[in-house]
């Protein structure tokens, strides 16, 4: 069980400021949804937390301790948007998961790999396959298993369902929710889809042009949005049933 | 770079390219200066032969400035370079700049026409090959084109030159076999320089055309039901030109190098023939001068192609580093 706290995070690329002075607390064992339009800096923020984007100013604290510039297996793991790009095409599924495990003996390793694959609903006998034998949804499950195998205290999910087909998306969301409740990690769930964020999150944070413009309990933010950006995002959610639109 | 210029992507791009050109030129100048110092042993003794008297070697070293400290040699070298002085040839005692200016025109006289001919043949050839064989049509034509250009690509230019001489100067004496003379003496050297790069470039153009034809915007153009002329010339040509030239840019600098071999086959009185003699005679100041000329010419060509592409395709200025 860990919490994630961001203090004054700023990310600059040359003159361009992608993220500006963001403070955010993801309490332990809860899910925070991070929403915003494209270019709002939400993905950059997620990457900055795991060290894939250069932090110009600010601190990332996990359980109150500064993550700093430490190397090695971090307590924060990230699952990427595109499962077709996030697995090495030349590496078997099992090797990909094993890479995340702490160094142990061979036998222990393969039982651990099997355990994590089973956890995400992949038949452990598929560990010998390379990713191209798997569908998008299965790949995303493997990516999730790899991230979980590193035993993270905090998981960042960066648009993990937007590259998936609708029928698969639901299954991955169910799995993610179930695992989060079971393993109790804190999660920063980044998405442009408010409905998906609403379904998973305890708290919602809204970003616009690199700044955090609103943050609060899911219900409150979506029912009584305070910031114009949140209202725009809410207005832009397409709905299926005409009845909803009327209400 | 924090000037206001960088706000305009094109100006920023131009600035970066100019900077790179300057750095590359500096590297070239330094390398050509360093050349004589990198040669193992005593280069002057090697150049003058083992029979030369020590006094002569010392005198030559003095006239080359090799008895000076390295730094002051470099400063003198740079100073002379700015005044257009490249020293004296060891073997002929003539100023290097004079030799170069008397030899350079002959090289340009075959390189420039070859350059123009390559462009004029490769682009229409590659494009028509692509259009005629796209979507798996004319499989045999495609095979013939790729085989022919592939075979030509495997032939070294000088060998083609020898072959052309054997065919059109020896077997059928239509053109002179060697040396510069009337207009007919230019035919074989220019052809030898043109045919192979044109074949290679037309292959590139064909592949690029096929790529461009598969792009989404060409599907948009198809949806507009335009006549073929507009479809290919207006929509496809500009896009494939930029990408083909990016890939073909290297071809033009290697064309310059190709002249070295071709000039030797045809005993052409250009720079290429001169540098080979200079290397065998260990005439280092002359080699140095010609390396400088070839090197800066290649850098300028690359620079010009880059700038032209930057103007033609503004997106490349954002991509390009």
């Amino acid at each position, binding site marked *: 069980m860990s919490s994630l706290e961001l203090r004054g995070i700023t990310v600059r690329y040359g003159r361009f400021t992608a993220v500006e002075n963001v403070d955010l607390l993801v309490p332990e064992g809860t899910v925070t949804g991070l929403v915003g339009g494209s270019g709002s800096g939400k993905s950059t923020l997620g990457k900055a937390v795991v060290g894939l984007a250069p932090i110009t100013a600010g601190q990332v604290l996990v359980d109150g301790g500064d993550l700093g510039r430490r190397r090695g297996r971090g307590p924060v793991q990230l699952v990427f948007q595109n499962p077709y790009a996030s697995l*090495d095409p030349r590496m078997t599924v099992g090797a990909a998961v094993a890479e995340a495990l702490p160094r142990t003996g061979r036998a222990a390793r393969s039982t651990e790999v099997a355990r994590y694959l089973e956890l995400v609903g992949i038949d452990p006998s598929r560990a010998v396959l390379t990713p191209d034998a798997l569908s998008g949804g299965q790949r995303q499950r493997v990516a999730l298993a790899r991230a979980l195998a590193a035993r993270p205290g905090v998981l960042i999910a960066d648009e993990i369902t937007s590259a998936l087909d609708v029928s698969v998306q639901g299954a991955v969301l169910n799995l993610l929710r179930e695992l989060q409740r079971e393993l109790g990690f804190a999660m920063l769930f980044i998405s442009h889809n408010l409905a998906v964020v609403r379904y998973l999150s305890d708290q919602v944070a809204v970003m616009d042009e690199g700044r955090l413009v609103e943050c609060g309990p899911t219900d409150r933010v979506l029912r009584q949005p305070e910031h114009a950006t949140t209202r725009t995002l809410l207005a832009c959610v397409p709905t299926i049933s005409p009845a909803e639109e009327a209400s | 770079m924090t000037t206001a210029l960088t706000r305009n992507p094109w100006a920023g791009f131009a600035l970066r390219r100019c900077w790179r050109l300057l750095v590359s030129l500096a590297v070239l100048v330094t390398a050509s200066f360093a050349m004589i110092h990198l040669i193992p042993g005593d280069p002057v003794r090697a150049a003058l032969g083992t029979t030369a008297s020590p006094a002569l070697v010392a005198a030559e070293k003095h006239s080359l400035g090799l008895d000076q400290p390295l730094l002051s040699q470099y400063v003198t070298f740079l100073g002379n370079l700015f005044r257009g002085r490249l020293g004296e040839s060891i073997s002929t005692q003539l100023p290097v700049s004079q030799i170069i200016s008397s030899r350079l025109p002959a090289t340009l006289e075959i390189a420039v026409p070859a350059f123009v001919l390559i462009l004029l043949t490769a682009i229409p050839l590659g494009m028509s090959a692509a259009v005629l064989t796209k979507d798996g049509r004319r499989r045999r034509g495609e095979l013939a084109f790729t085989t022919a250009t592939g075979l030509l690509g495997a032939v070294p230019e000088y060998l083609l030159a020898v072959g052309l001489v054997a065919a059109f100067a020896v077997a059928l004496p239509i053109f002179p076999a060697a040396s510069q003379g009337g207009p007919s003496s230019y035919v074989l050297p220019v052809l030898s320089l043109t045919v192979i790069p044109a074949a290679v470039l037309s292959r590139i153009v064909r592949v690029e055309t096929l790529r461009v034809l598969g792009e989404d915007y060409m599907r948009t153009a198809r949806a507009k039901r335009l006549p073929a002329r507009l479809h290919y010339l207006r929509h496809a040509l500009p896009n494939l030109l930029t990408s083909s030239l990016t890939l073909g840019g290297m071809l033009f600098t290697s064309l310059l190098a190709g002249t070295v071999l071709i000039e030797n086959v045809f005993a052409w009185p250009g720079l290429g023939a001169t540098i080979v003699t200079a*290397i065998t005679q260990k005439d280092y100041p002359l080699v140095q001068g010609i390396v400088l000329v070839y090197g800066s010419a290649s*850098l300028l060509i690359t620079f010009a192609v880059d700038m032209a592409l930057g103007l033609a395709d503004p997106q490349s200025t954002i991509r390009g580093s």
Partner: protein
Amino acid sequence: MPHLPSPSVPSSSLLHRLRRTLRTPLGVTALTACIVLAVVAVLGPMLFGAEADRVDTNAIDQGSSMAHLLGTDDLGRDIAARVVVATRLSLELTLQATVIGVVGGLLLGVAPTVLGRRLGRLVTATVGVLVAFPGLLFVLFLATVFGVGSTGAMFAIGVATVPSMARLVQNMTASIAGSDYVAAARILGVGRFRLVSRHLLPNIAEPSALFATQAAAGILLSFSGLSFLGLGVQAPQYDWGRLLNEQLNGIYVNPVAALAPGVAVVLTGLTFGLVGEVFAKASGRRAPLSRQQPPSEQSAMAPAPLPDESAEGALVQVHDLRVGFPDGREAVRGVSLTIGHGEALGLVGESGSGKSLTALALADLVPHPGRVQAAEITFDGHDLRSDPHLGTTLAMVFQDPMASLNPALRVGRQLSEVAEVHLGSTRAQARARAVDRLSAVRIPSAARRARQRPHEYSGGMRQRAVIAMGLMGEPKLVIADEPTTALDVTVQQQVLDLLAEVRTETGAALLLISHDLAVVAQVCERVLVMYAGRIVEDLPVAELVGGAAHPYTRALVGAIPTMTTDPNTELATIPGRPPEPGDADQGCSFAPRCALATDRCRSTRPELVGFDTGRRVACWHPVGAVLPLDVRPVDAEAAS
């Protein structure tokens, strides 16, 4: 998103693919050529060495004869023997120089990833400067430094290959180092050297091997060139270039002797090229396809009779549309649909359902090698099979606005040419119309924007420009294929509003293709749901929530969380995955994933039949719908 690469055929190991490629005619040729070269290189000097060196003053500069196949040189030595003997030295020097070039290139190429940012940049910049010089200049420079002779030339040519190899490796490693899977490994704390050995090198091995063979061919040519200039191999040693140099003066006397070493160079170069082709094929880019299946027999089937309910005066009338590929896969398997004048119809399905190909078939834009067949396909009274000229009555909007406008042309030009070509407008008229249309889709300061090129537009503006392009004429149908998928949520709404507005203003019909039910629900009146190349349900938008009859449609609706979904319930899921276009096609395609499936579903395919008013469903067990029994095919009943 539906346009991601579909899971490809499981690929086997490189070694396996290499072995398979070696069995093709190309592979056999390459292998034979390599063996012949090796044998000549090993045995040549042993068998012909003595003859090649024997000086015969009685036979100086002879032409070809029985005794001397290619004649003799100025010392009376047999040229044919010398060409054969020269093979070993030529190959040795080439391979040594290649090793220097490839190893040096790999080291310099991978260095920026392993070294820190600053040192890495320095290496990249140095290589960037070096590649600008032509290789031969490099060789001449280095030959001057290393001295004339074979060792010097070998180092010179090897080192001269390093920059281009390094550049290639750098580009490849940079793109792999920027990939998500390397980022994931970094987050997991995998060290630099393990990163290189486990992720980078395996992924660049194949293109590097390909480049190495090409480099070897180039090096062979450079070497012969250098020897030809007299700067490479020195007498009494000789390689092919040296022989060529010696024989050039005799070209008037014996041209064959002058060309023979050249032919050897070319043939060897081609052998290296062939080996490269084998690598390229084995690495999958040009992999030999598994035996192509004969075209599907479906086409020979008699088309099903036209439905009697076919609406008179519909704008689009399609019956039994099929899109197949030469390998026998069929992506669209018998789609029938009508679009009324001014109607807004949605076409929904997951990736691979064939919805985009259906739309492209309507616009006659199915890419090669797809083949379109249909019992009937008419648009506005024209039979599209005989007269595909749609002119300006059909407008297309594509998924990716970043790619669907020509980057080299000004936006105004791309619009105005439609009017010039199809409406016979003058240049000025067409330009004015283009500006007018751009402002009609609410592009601000349209006159100025018309003079810009697409890269100066934002994504949303590009999509508007594409819509404006369709409005240059008077479209009767707008086909929009995932028009908002690549756009930001806020922009998505604006584009959908614009499409709705275009429809009301021009009275054009709209066919909106999307994977997102909500997007379709917002703009359309009627929805067609596609699964595995067929339409499985046709229903009014209002019925989507709660009223759908097909289990697949119901599952699709239930799988997406909406703003009213209870966060404490599980989302509906569909087990399994959709069939591939090549899979066996028996019974209902959805049966393997369907909870309601029975034996009948697995053996007999349900046809799309109507019930209620204007609703159709292809299912044996539709939810909540009562199908009139007599509509069901009798033979299907018997089979079950």
